[in-house]
């Protein structure tokens, strides 16, 4: 059972998500050939702390950094290090922060320098799949409807959906119930109710869906070495429909309640 957040709590979620997305925007601009991934991690931490927030991933189950950087065939949870970005790489940037007790979590995949047409298409389709999932977030729908929308879009474009990692509820903890898979039949799993907050995050591969985790215990890569992209936004279900929490409230001003 996922916790329903009050209007005041959603405002706090909004603040955390805003910091994450603005930081990601700055990182996307800084991802250039020759930049070590460690440098992006340092920038992310500095920016988040300047905003009065704390990194959400640092120390989470022993994760050693602020940012997850997943390059090319890396799917998610890549650990920043000495690796330098190269022209033509695609780089997944996944970031979370906590401010005033509430978490924000978002990710995007960006191209470094001149990127192949295939990689650009993968990134576009993954972001579209995320938007398709978000669009289903109306009260009365179910968590399975989100995954179904994501899977239908991605597989319709000839790509495959990662099964081993899933989106999640978010709020006063980074990972809350329910799990939000990016696949599966519609009409199943938990019913969506106003005040639910979900991190929806499709991980889409050019090749097969299979992934494995490297010896560092974190970095997930595609088994067939194919490119993978990852986009994520934290979304609140409201009576009017989905609220992407890093955006302004989209259904008019001055509301006291979302229910």
């Amino acid at each position, binding site marked *: 059972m996922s916790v329903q957040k009050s209007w005041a709590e959603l405002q706090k979620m909004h603040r955390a998500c805003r910091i994450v997305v603005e930081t990601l925007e700055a990182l996307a601009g800084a991802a250039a050939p020759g930049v070590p991934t460690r440098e992006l991690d340092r920038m992310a931490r500095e920016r988040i702390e300047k905003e009065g927030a704390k990194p959400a991933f640092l120390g989470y189950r022993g994760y050693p950094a602020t940012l997850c950087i997943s390059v090319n065939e890396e799917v998610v949870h890549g650990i920043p290090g000495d690796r330098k970005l190269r022209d033509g790489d695609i780089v997944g940037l996944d970031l979370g922060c906590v401010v005033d007790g509430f978490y924000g979590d978002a990710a995007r995949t960006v191209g470094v320098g001149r990127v192949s047409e295939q990689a650009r298409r993968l990134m576009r389709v993954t972001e579209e799949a995320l938007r398709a999932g978000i669009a289903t977030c109306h009260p009365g729908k179910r968590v399975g409807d989100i995954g179904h929308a994501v899977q239908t879009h991605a597989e319709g474009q000839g790509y495959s959906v990662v099964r081993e*990692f899933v989106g999640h509820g978010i709020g006063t903890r980074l990972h809350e119930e329910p799990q939000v898979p990016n696949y599966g039949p519609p009409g199943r799993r938990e019913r969506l109710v106003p005040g639910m907050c979900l991190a929806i995050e499709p*991980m889409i591969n050019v090749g097969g869906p299979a992934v494995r985790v490297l010896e560092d215990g974190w970095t997930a890569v595609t088994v067939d070495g194919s490119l993978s992209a990852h986009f994520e936004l934290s979304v609140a279900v409201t009576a009017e429909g989905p609220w992407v929490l890093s955006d302004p409230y989209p259904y008019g001003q001055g509301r006291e309640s979302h229910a």
Partner: protein
Amino acid sequence: MPRPAGGGGSGESVPAAVEVPGTVLESLPNALYRVQLETEGRPLVVAHVSGAASLRRILPGEAVVVELLPYDAGRGRIVRRRF
């Protein structure tokens, strides 16, 4: 940051059920049965009936297999008959 799929919430795993043989003593209201287990101490449990086993009515005296979870030692689920 995606979480690994599967398992229970926040990394808790679902504890394994154990299956033990028993004998139905009496039928109780609400489709419950009192079952005497044939394990150490011959404990009594109140058991409900799993879907597959409920297709035919269970009568007192029948030999059954009861599934137990660590949450409540006094409760079980009849999963099948023994012959």
